[in-house]
């Protein structure tokens, strides 16, 4: 016989202002199976919890209903109290009479009645509750870091330094990411490569880090603590265990006219190449799409001259299966390119360039050795126009968000130009200046006040070329909307930060969600900003949204700490709110008929095929079972099952129907 205790909370005035709590407590006390009922000002307070614990002990309660706020707030609190009092915590249920009643209705009898109705449904539910035990899952204490940019590097180093092993996968031939392409960084103007390369080397040399470059994650299965990952090791055509990185091969390679991605196409590389001098590892790969040997079947120069005999044309992509406990996704971003802005002539006029190209021009390791020279004729521009928001905050072009970093890098670009060409003119067309970071606004002011960069508030309508000059047609909205026409030698567009082209594929492979612009979605924008909705998969850097280096590094460390936290115990416990397939005595074993419809609809791939066999190994029946580690308790499978063979613990069909019947039979 059930002995249920009902505890009605006033929540200060939050509930009692509109609900007659004393009346609810009184009426609840008369419900069948209710042995004790009381109201109290703050149930979640220490005395409130003590009241519950004492009542359970004193009245030998078998289950409790706490009528107060949303279970999101205090279910854990009250379940712990129940456990302390010696009953299974899953015999504690909450009736939400705050968010669902007092906050949304005026004071009236009907409001009190609704509160009572909700209490009654939960009383009926708790009568059907069963004791549940948390699920224990072992943890593989290895992290996978996808992406070797500054985000991945930071996360990998943090986890590795905490003593756990890390596998880093980078799709390019070298780690370093976009940061390795940058010239100097705001707001301190220190050299990007100078601060980055030591970190890259540290990754390569760290005993806890295994680095796979020129590799991609092919498949992810499993669940938090127990992921199984397949990595595609793309054929490098160079045996890195033999290669010494001497560089003879790329000096002699005859395919010399391949646009150099690292220099944003403003220079050339060879078919066998290492992307930049500070690359890690600084050993080459063969770009088969541009290699004469692979395209035309002749050449083979590199193989002939390699002193280490490291060149192998026959090698194929290989697949490696690894087990990891946590995954840090740090796949980075891309920039919107090409003819995106036809009115600005990007792609049409050589001297209309984007921000990343400017970084390469300003970089000491770039194609001009750090001198700002325009791509068309190599002349040093006398006048440069910088256009902010060239693609961002532009609904018509499909990118309505702010790219966040452009205000700062545009100020930096203008400043770098002025530092190198003192008598040059720099104009910035902007809509708003968003410089909200530490020392950021000071930086922009410095560009304006000390370096005499002309900021014009207004958007550019069109850029065209005439007599070797770029005519920039804009407007000064601070001067009564007067048109402004500038004859510039070079134009730098602050193009939008966008998600990687393959972001959607990556997200689908990882089973993580993403927004309409294909940036990966965090579990909660404020309270869980580095986790995804899939437990055990964290986000770092610009794959989640545009961000600058300081923010990227903080986020990387944050996600690393999530992984380290996970690895701090040998196993983890999970709420037992998972689906189960019923079990019956042989020869039925279960009422499941193995139609597998649930398997297809399960968003977490938590349902597996199960074969029932007799002692001699003969197959008797095919059914399904739920992997409790993967199941998130969403209940989709329950809805799909025709003969109710699958049920959700803690929210079983029986419990749900009891709740409904309690309402209907009132």
């Amino acid at each position, binding site marked *: 016989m059930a002995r249920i205790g009902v505890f009605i909370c006033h929540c200060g005035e939050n509930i009692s202002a509109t609900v007659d709590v004393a009346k609810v407590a009184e009426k609840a006390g008369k419900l069948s199976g209710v042995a004790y009922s009381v109201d109290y000002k703050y149930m979640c307070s220490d005395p409130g919890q003590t009241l519950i614990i004492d009542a359970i002990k004193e009245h030998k309660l078998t289950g409790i209903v706490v009528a107060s706020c949303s279970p999101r707030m205090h279910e854990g609190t009250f379940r712990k109290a129940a456990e302390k009092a010696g009953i299974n915590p899953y015999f504690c249920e909450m009736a939400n009479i705050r968010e669902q009643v007092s906050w949304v209705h005026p004071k009236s009898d009907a409001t009190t009645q609704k509160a009572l109705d909700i209490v009654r449904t939960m009383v009926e539910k708790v009568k059907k509750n069963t004791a549940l035990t948390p699920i224990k899952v072992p943890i593989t204490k290895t992290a996978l870091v996808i992406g070797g940019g500054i985000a991945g590097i930071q996360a990998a180093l943090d986890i590795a330094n905490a003593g756990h092993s890390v596998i880093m996968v980078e799709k390019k031939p070298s780690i370093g990411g976009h940061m390795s392409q940058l010239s100097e960084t705001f707001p301190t103007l220190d050299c990007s490569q100078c601060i980055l390369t030591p970190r890259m080397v540290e990754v390569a040399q760290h005993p806890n880090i295994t680095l796979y470059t020129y590799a991609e994650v092919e498949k992810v299965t499993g669940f938090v603590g127990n992921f199984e990952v397949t990595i595609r090791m793309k054929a490098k055509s160079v045996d890195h265990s033999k290669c010494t990185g001497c560089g003879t091969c790329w000096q002699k390679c005859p395919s010399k006219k391949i646009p150099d991605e690292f220099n944003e196409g403003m220079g050339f590389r060879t078919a066998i190449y290492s992307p930049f001098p500070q690359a890690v590892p600084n050993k080459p790969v063969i770009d088969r799409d541009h290699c004469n040997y692979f395209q035309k079947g002749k050449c083979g120069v590199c193989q002939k001259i390699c002193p280490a005999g490291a060149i192998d044309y026959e090698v194929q992509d290989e697949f490696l299966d690894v087990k990891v406990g946590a995954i840090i996704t740090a796949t980075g971003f891309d920039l919107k390119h090409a*003819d995106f802005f036809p009115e600005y*002539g990007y792609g049409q006029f050589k001297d209309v360039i984007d921000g990343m190209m400017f970084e390469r021009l300003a970089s000491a390791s770039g194609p001009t050795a750090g001198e700002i020279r325009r791509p068309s004729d190599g002349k040093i521009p006398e006048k440069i126009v910088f256009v902010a928001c060239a693609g961002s905050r532009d609904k018509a072009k499909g990118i309505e968000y702010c790219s966040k970093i452009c205000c700062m890098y545009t100020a930096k670009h203008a400043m770098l130009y002025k530092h190198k060409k003192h008598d040059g003119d720099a104009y910035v067309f902007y809509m708003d200046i968003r410089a909200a970071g530490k020392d950021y606004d000071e930086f922009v002011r410095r560009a304006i006040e000390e370096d005499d960069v002309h900021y014009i508030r207004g958007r550019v309508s*069109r850029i065209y070329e005439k007599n070797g000059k770029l005519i920039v047609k804009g407007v000064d909205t601070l001067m009564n909307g007067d048109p402004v026409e500038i004859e510039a030698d070079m134009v730098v567009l602050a193009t939008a930060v966008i998600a990687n082209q393959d972001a959607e594929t990556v997200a689908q492979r990882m089973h993580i969600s993403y927004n309409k612009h294909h940036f990966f979605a965090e579990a909660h924008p404020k309270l869980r900003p580095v986790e995804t909705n899939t437990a055990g998969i964290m986000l770092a850097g610009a794959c989640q949204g545009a961000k600058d280096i300081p923010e990227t590094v903080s986020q990387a460390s944050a996600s690393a700490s999530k992984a380290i936290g996970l690895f701090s115990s040998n196993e983890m416990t999970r709420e037992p709110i998972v689906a189960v397939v019923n079990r019956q005595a042989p020869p039925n074993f279960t009422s499941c008929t193995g139609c597998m419809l649930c398997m297809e609809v399960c968003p977490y791939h938590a349902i597996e095929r199960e074969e029932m066999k007799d002692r001699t190994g003969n197959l008797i029946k095919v059914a399904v079972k739920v992997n409790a580690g993967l199941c998130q308790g969403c209940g989709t499978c329950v809805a799909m099952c025709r003969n109710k063979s699958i049920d959700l613990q803690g929210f079983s069909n029986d419990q749900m129907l009891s709740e409904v019947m309690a309402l209907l039979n009132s």
Partner: protein
Amino acid sequence: MRIGFYPGCSLEGSSKEYSDSLFAVAEKCGIMLEEIKDWSCCGASAAHNLNHDLALALPARTLALAEKQGFEEVVIPCAACYSRIAGTKQEISNNVATRKKIERYIDLTLEADIKILTVFEFLQKYIFPVADGHIVNKLNQKTACYYGCLYSRPKETAALEQIENPMEMDKVMVKAGATPIDWAFKTECCGAGFTMSRTDIVAKLSGKIIEDAADRGAESIIVACPMCHVNLDMRRPEIKKQLNKEINLPVLFITQALGLSMGIPADQLGLNKHYVPTDKVVTCIVKKEA
């Protein structure tokens, strides 16, 4: 299939040579165009400046007549008429209530599913497949292809693939043996409807266009819009005053230029009707090499 033809008012008057040359080219290639019977004016900028319903009703009447007469496609060589009629078609097919209202005004029913062809689409679809056999001359000159506003904007009815740097006319001119130049004013506004009411503005805007074309070495300007033609050709005295210099750059309709490459006599193409003499264009022509 019968191809409908909507000349619009200008092609019956000030830009008769556009219509004449289009028919000459079509005839040469064996394509028949049939005028929509009893068509009326599209309302031009006057209607949409003063009354939105009228700006829909006038084009709708013509569309309804074309449908009634069984045309599946209608060629509209005038850019202004094209813009008004394509815009009307779009608005009517997007909004049932508007369609019902307009049907009441014009006392005709319409489906608004007729295909409207610009002169570029017409040339591409019907003339290009057979043109090579008819092109006997090479225009042998640098031309500036001028598209103006009405083909390129608004984006909902734009008849051009790249609205900031269209190439449709340039392709036709390459076919005719000319060398289209890359220039900056392909889709800038010429002043359009202000041709009579604000000649000063027309002179200013059209002057910039002519000047840029001349600066970049064009020997002729090619247009596909009667308003552009009037402003660029007829308003030369005002433009001369505005620029303080005389630029004798002839302005040809696209069909006139194509007609010349097909060996159609200049008179038949109406070249004698222009204000800026077109002799230079004609003298540039050489026989196409076999």
